[in-house]
Each structure stands twice: as C-alpha cells, then as structure tokens.
C-alpha cells in the first residue's frame, strides 16, 4: 500500500498530544524492550529512537485495543490480530494509566461517537440540533443509529 511518507513525517513533527520516553517492544519474534520516544499526534502513535529526529515507525490508532497488562505496562493490539501486541513499559503506574486513557480517546472513531452522543443529548435537552450551525447536520457520519453510506 502506498502512502506518502513525507506527510507522515511532517505529522510526526507536529505538537504532540502526549510524548514520553517509554520502553517499547514490537510484536516480532525475539524482540526486546527498547527505550523509545513515543509521541501521540492525532490518531497516530509515532515512535523514535531517543536521539533521532525521524520516527522509526507509526501506528494508526483505529480499530485497536489498548490493554492494561502487568504493573506499569500496557499494550496496543489491532482488531484483526489481537495476539500481536505492541508492549509499553512506563516509569510508573500513573503514567501507564494516563497513556491508556489518552490512547483510548485518540481515535477518530471515538470522536465520531462522542460527537453523536453529545449531539443527541443536546437535542434531547434543548430541542435543537447543535450541528446545524456548522452546516454538517446532514452528514452521514454524524447520524445516530444506522450509519449508511
């Protein structure tokens, strides 16, 4: 699959939602925990060698599962391959839980659902559709219930 790496590299340089040096292990045979600079930007998690300006890799955080593992540790896996886990060992349990929360909220799909939820609640409470002012109330992606293209 082609993708414009340049765009991703540029995105990796944007201000991060969250960034920290964390021990990381990729789901590859024989891989070990390595210290990485991990940076959350929109729905991508970039990871860098700590002394490099360009990331080694990026994870798109859609349709993924963030799991609390043992103490200080969480993992990211993807729907179609739940056993393949990217593991992250934090400095503290607190840091671990913060990252889990941030990553769970970091998907576009999560935001879409939030929006639909809020829209519906506001409509119920005020009788008005809050999306009308944005001119996006008819968009399929914001409809409650069956989401048809």
């Amino acid at each position: 699959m082609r993708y414009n790496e340049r765009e991703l590299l540029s995105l990796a340089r944007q201000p991060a939602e969250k960034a920290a040096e964390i021990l990381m292990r990729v789901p590859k045979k024989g891989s070990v925990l390595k210290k990485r600079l991990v940076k959350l930007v929109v729905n991508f998690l970039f990871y860098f060698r700590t002394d490099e300006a360009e990331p080694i890799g990026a994870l798109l955080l859609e349709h993924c599962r963030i799991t609390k593992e043992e103490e200080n540790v969480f993992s990211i896996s993807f729907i179609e391959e739940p056993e393949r886990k990217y593991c992250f060992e934090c400095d503290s349990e607190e840091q671990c839980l913060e990252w889990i929360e941030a990553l769970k909220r970091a998907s576009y799909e999560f935001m879409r659902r939030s929006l639909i939820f809020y829209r519906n609640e506001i409509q119920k409470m005020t009788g008005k559709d809050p999306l009308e002012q944005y001119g996006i109330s008819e968009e399929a992606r914001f409809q409650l219930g069956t989401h048809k293209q």
Partner: protein
Amino acid sequence: MKLNERSVAHYATCDSPADHAGFLRKRVERHHHHATSYQRRWFVLKGNLLFYFEERESREPLGLVVLEGCTVELCEATEEFAFAIRFDDAGARAYVLVADGQAAMEAWVKALSRASFDYMRLVVKELEKQLEEACKSLAACRKSPRKSSSSGRKRHLSNPALLPLQEKPAILENGYSTWGSGGGVPGGAACPDRDGGHAKPPPLPPRRRLATGSTAGSPVPSFSPAMPESPVSLATVCFSKLHSWYGQEIAVLRREWQERQKRGHP
C-alpha cells in the same frame, strides 16, 4: 518509516462506515513528462484517511493519503471538476483529483475539508461545552426532587431521560464497536436491545448498583460489587468518562445477551 500497514488496510476495507466514497480520477504525477494523465480509482474516506483502490471490489487499498495539515481547493486544471489536496509542507506533492460532475466535486471538497482530526476535535469540544451549559441551565430550572440512592452522590447528567444504552455501541475496543452480532457493526445497526423480545425499557446507568445501593424497579440484574461509582456529575459531562464507565456494564450486558441468544431467544 514503518507503518502498521496490515491494520491500516484492514481499517480501510472493513465494514466500518465510510464518510464518503466514489470514483475519482487521480492525476498521475510524472516528472519530465508533458502529458498529464489520470487514473480512475475508487476512493474511500474514513476519518482523516483517504484510501484509494484500483477497483471498487479490490480487497486492499492501493494507497492512502493522510489528511492532516492540508487544504482542499478547486484547481485550475484543464480538466473540469478538478480539485486538489495541498499540504502545508511546501515540498509535499499535491493530489489532483477529478470528479464526475459538479455535485460530486462539491461533495468531495466538502467532505475532505472537514476530514481532519482537529476539525472533529473542535466540533466535539464545542458540543461538550454546549452540553455542559445545557445541563447547568436545566439543573437550574429543575425543581423536581431527586431520588437519591445514596447520600451525597451527584446525579448523572440526564436522569430519567438518559440516552438509552442501545444508542451507544458496545465500545470495547478503540473505535470498533461490536454488538456481538458478528464483526464491526457500526453504532446502532442491528442493536440487540431494540428487538421485540425485550419489551422492557433499557436500564438506567448503573450508578445505583454498588454493593450497598440498589434501586427498586431496576430491570437488570445487579452487577458485581466491583462496578465503580459513576464518575459523572452534572458539571463534568465527559464522554470519555461515560464511555469507559459504561463499557463495563455493556460488557456484562453483552455477555448476558449473547447467552440469551444462544439459548434461542429472539
């Protein structure tokens, strides 16, 4: 730079809802070549990602355009109904796309201009704020006595009018809602709670279902005492908190529903 391509491709092709889809002709960028040519591709927009496929039925995307840090504009091309995705990063190449007609072009430009994560985030934050304000003003007006199941605990925001559980998909994984009806069912589709077999209204949130508290008339069996207290109060309506908090109850409900399904209930 590595990317979790398999997962990305899976996201592109799975049945989670696309925000927009259609055929577009994509300009082929050839250097040192004077004649421009276009290739017809099937485009699918999901969130801030624009995928393109060789054919509509292709099982894997040919490519992906990440729609961050870009603008979408009509462009001066020899082709009619052409528009371009241009990136703030000056050196990045633009994507020139051609739609089938005026309406298609406008629809694409509109969808793509609003596809960025930041745009979504902005709208969500704004709605969150509006909801908080609506709650506050509603609370100020409301004088009805509150049935409190335990002392001092703040009320969940919407009291009896709470969004029924079936309108919130069982969010167990990030961005992938599963109702147990097999695969990624988008929010609300084939909601099991809507079926005719369950005549009772959806249960209210489990704030009352701590080990000590229980409310008469709760239609749903109580959960394990380990269920945490609702973190939500009128002042802190926050979807993410509600989300993780409900997620636990929904997991239990889902299991129960699945068991009932196995036993042949409608």
